[in-house]
């Protein structure tokens, strides 16, 4: 049985189709669901194993990115979300706007729905930025989603205006101590970097994405769903890009929920 993937959509969500496609070719059974379908009860979160929050501008990113959708989720689905994350064979992936939603619901990093601990704020450059960057997996993070991805520099595209990861010192230390950092922006030698544009937004500790303490919730700014075919990389014609480096993440997530016990 293919694991069921709920790709959540709201007004202004826009990378839902790529997300659904990425999970599909990784072996999932994706369905794009509007948040109103959850609200009217016609679709239920409990019927799914993977919840994917795609990129875009949910509700225009008004006030700050991801805020309005985060409020909607925490106001109406607190219990359902709690039950969902308590099932041990579920996964949540938030990419870009989805990551912004996850931190604003409090699901990341500490699974405290309604308590926001970290933030993603305006890029230091002050503007939206679309480019390919390099990331590396933090090999101390033992999330099953990241397995066998930690030996190489991974190319992924970013496209955001509010991607700077910030937290106060104490929380940041906690995140590092618990090895919740999933990826960091790196330079060509694979070293974490604070230099623009390799670190495109000025994220503290070069943080690209984080997991929760169980490793079953992952949020990240770049778009792995936009690198699931070799030809999506701008330089595939130069011969040194041989595999789509975003795809393993989706395969890992699908594999994990298939193998895990509830």
């Amino acid at each position, binding site marked *: 049985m293919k694991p069921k993937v709920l790709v959540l959509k709201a007004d202004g969500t826009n990378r839902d189709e790529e997300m659904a496609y990425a999970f599909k070719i990784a072996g999932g059974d994706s369905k794009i669901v*509007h948040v109103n379908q959850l609200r009217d009860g016609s679709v239920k979160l409990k019927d799914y194993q993977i919840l994917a929050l795609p990129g875009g501008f949910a509700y225009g990113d008004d*006030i700050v990115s991801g805020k309005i959708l985060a409020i*909607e989720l925490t106001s109406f689905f607190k219990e359902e979300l709690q039950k969902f994350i308590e099932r041990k064979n579920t996964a949540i992936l938030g990419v870009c706007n989805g990551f912004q939603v996850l931190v604003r619901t409090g699901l990341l990093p500490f699974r405290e729905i309604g308590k926001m601990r970290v933030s993603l704020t305006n890029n230091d450059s002050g*503007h939206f930025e679309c480019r390919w960057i390099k990331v590396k997996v933090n090999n101390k993070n033992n999330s099953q989603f990241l397995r066998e991805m930690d030996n190489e520099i991974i190319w992924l595209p970013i496209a955001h205006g509010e991607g700077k990861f910030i937290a106060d010192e104490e929380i940041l230390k906690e995140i590092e101590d618990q090895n919740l950092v999933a990826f960091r922006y790196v330079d060509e030698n694979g070293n974490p970097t604070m230099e623009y544009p390799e670190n495109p937004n000025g994220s503290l500790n070069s943080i690209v994405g984080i997991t929760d303490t169980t490793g079953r919730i992952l949020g990240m700014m770049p778009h792995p769903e936009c690198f699931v075919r070799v030809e999506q990389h701008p330089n595939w014609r130069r011969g040194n890009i041989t595999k789509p480096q975003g795809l393993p993440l989706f395969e890992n997530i699908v594999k994990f929920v298939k193998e895990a016990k509830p």
Partner: protein
Amino acid sequence: MIQKVRVQTIVGPDLKGDGILNDIHRMLGIKNITRVSAIKVYRLEGISEKEAKILAEKLLSESINQRYTINSTSEESKPTSEVKSVIIEIAYKPGVMNPEVTSIIKAADDLGIKLPACDSSFEYAFYGSLKKAEVEKIVEKLKLYNSLIEHIVKDEPQTLILKGQPGKIQTIPIRSLNDQELRDLSKDQLFLNLEEMKKIQEYFAAEKRDPTDLELETLAQTWSEHSGHKTFKAELLVDGKKKEPLIDRLKKEALKHDKNIVSAFVDNSGVMDFYGGFGICGKVETHNAPSAIEPYGGAMTGSGGVFRDIAATGKGAKNIASTDIFCFAPIDLPASQLPAGCLPPEYLLKRVVSGVRDYGNRMGIPTNNGSVHFHKDFRARPTVIVGAYGIVPKKYAIKDKPERNDLIICVGGRTGRDGIHGATFSSGEMTADTYTTHSSAVQIGNAIEEKRMFDALLEARDQDLIRLVQDCGGGGFSSAIGEIGETLGVTVDIKNALLKYQGLAPWEIFLSESQERMIVVLDPKNLKVFEMICKKYNVESTVLGKFDGSKKLKVYFGGKVVGHLDMQFLHHGLPKRVLKASRQSSVVSRQIKEPIQPKSEEEWIKVLRKVLSHGNVCSKEPIVRLYDHLVQGTNDLQPYSGKNLDGPNDSPVLRPVLSKQYGMIISHGLNPVFNNIDPYWGSIWAATEALSNFVAVGGDYKNASLINNYIWPFPDQESLWSLDRSVDAVVDFMKIFKIPVISGKDSLSSTYRGADGSVIKIPPTLCISVLGKIEDTRKTVTADLKKVGSTIVLVGEMDKNLGGSVYHQVNNLETDSVPRIDLKLLPKTFDAIYKGIRNGQILSCHDISEGGVISAIFEMCVGGNCGVNIHLGGVTSSHLRGGRMGSSEVSELLFNETTGCFIVEVKDEKVAKQLFKNIPYITLGKTQKAPIIDVKNFFSAEVPNLKKVWQKPMKEMFS
């Protein structure tokens, strides 16, 4: 009671404030302001302070990096250590839609708080020793707000709820007006000429009544140049010789080449055949008039409008790409040369780019092709061209004919006073007063409104509920409903329209160009399901009326008839014009006899740096990075590639169906300078450039379709003459390549008239866009050089003329011989390039355009992070058409802008010989690892140094 919440970011940089401070220091040179801080202000009406506190905490601020105050005065909200500050608050004017408001009300509702009304704005605190009046002057100078839509808040608003009674219906006693009175009635409002006004007078005389304001406005809108295309439909007398109307000539030739046509000239975009049962479509529009006075809103509504054209193709297409092409005055234009009522080019460029960014990115439509051009004569009015492309299952590509009793439904945004007179206004010329008298023609777009509407419409289409979709663009309901009702006749009650606020007169509702609205026609039995889909996506819809078979346009407001027009008269009553065109100025030959040739290596490098930093040649990467060009995951050939991802490519290649390998290529070409010098050959150049960009990445020109846009000065006899020449060029181009134009648009008002009688004609511009299909996106190439030791070849025949080239521009030479393209040879050249790419023998390819041969080679070196070794010793025969190739003419070769020629990288000379045996080519040299462009005996230049000057202009402006 209004609760006022202020939110300030206290951790991290204050980007807005710092940006303003930087501009004050850099642009104005004012040093006694030490800091600017930006504070977001929310006004919440109809809730208690306790409720406001909940919203401030949970919605409006984030404790990690912000703090808020409620109902404090400005004095309290600022840090105590700094006392001296001047506060300026900038807000949208009442009645201008603030896109954020809906979200705030929704989120408040989700938190259990019913919020009747709210608004948001920014407060800026200027710290330093300045008085309020001085700060206000700074705010004006920096154009921190646009007075058309925003204002400085002087008094606290008492309420945010706009109230009003419906405006009155007026009858205009047109039957009793004399000629002068008819002219006065038309001026600045209807934009019709006397003959047209008299035709209307006759109609109502026969009807034995006077028209309502709504009827008169509807006629003016339908008969406007914008909607009626009067010039393109007119009989022409060119230099005394009778010629067919421009549109007839274009259509006739286009329809001869219908192999790939699904629909051309009949719908909101042109559709061509694709693979897998799909069609692909394209539409390109200009949005010059609004962009000239409010560039941000103008660019947004331009994007929004052209996306709706795609969505309103057939029963609805899905938007998959967007293109943006701008023409401005040079950024360094002295302020003294700026005509009255016009905005400076730097401001325009930045704001237009922001508008495109904020709309396209929010829509999730990749912006992946475009260009920016500079010419002094755009100082009076910029040219802003926006294109959109889509995909549609062929079974939904053609509109059904409406049937009697079919419903007319308005979906999407609400109707407000915004955009009224947009269609008639854009058909008028720009004057010194334009800025002040046409403010209602401008509005702010709301991309999310449009995005959710498109989501809903595509779902409804896929359930086969829809007969047709029509855009509510220029002219609003009057245009959309008037058009679809032409054959059957319609009855609508515009009291059913959902309004943003009360107080609109019926004619305002009918003419409003409020964005993000579409008209859908449904069989009544599908209404219920359609409404459910709209509800799912939070989209409002309302039934306005139905098709009634009366052949009339019957408009009611409640029980009252406010319009009753004959469809026949509305659509066919416009008198056909006969227009005269003649060549006024005899062109003085300004040929230069001797080519100008740099005399030393130093001179070579100096002129090369000038060419590469010219606005038309320099890197546009900083702009492209602001656009989401990767969304939808379809882009298999991206705008930039190469070792450092900074080498530009000619055209994007998209895979619109993610699981399939077939693709779509999009490209464009234009050259206002060439067009201005020679309307025929300039237009041929534009079309060739567009198709060359398509071929340069691997496209087969036989699978391409064209879109033509004519942006011309007001068609007086001289401008009409050049327009006629341009149309002839496009017709000839179709003939040669046997491919059709499938869509197009004209914008014939690019003339500025100053109060002092001065006239500026904006350079006439033909923009040709290309869309086409390719079986396999993997059989394409980028421009970045791939290997060391490969052979570099110039393919195609170059014309010796450099008139209008960037090389001549930087040398301040004005000549009138633009490059002429050998159209007989061109199909063979295109074929050879296509085949060489398809079979993998061409490793990289770049087309020649502005900046010439050397600029193309340079860009390929940037991509490859390498160099080339060029040896022109062997180039002695007549490689330049009409000229000889001697050493003194090396500059004519290297800066030559004959498009339709290509620089290609192949393995070796043998491959070149085999690929290009039937066409002229020159082997230029070999690629080398060292990043140096080495032209033996002439100069040797380091690529990284050149790259710096090439990247500098836009980097400075956009980072």
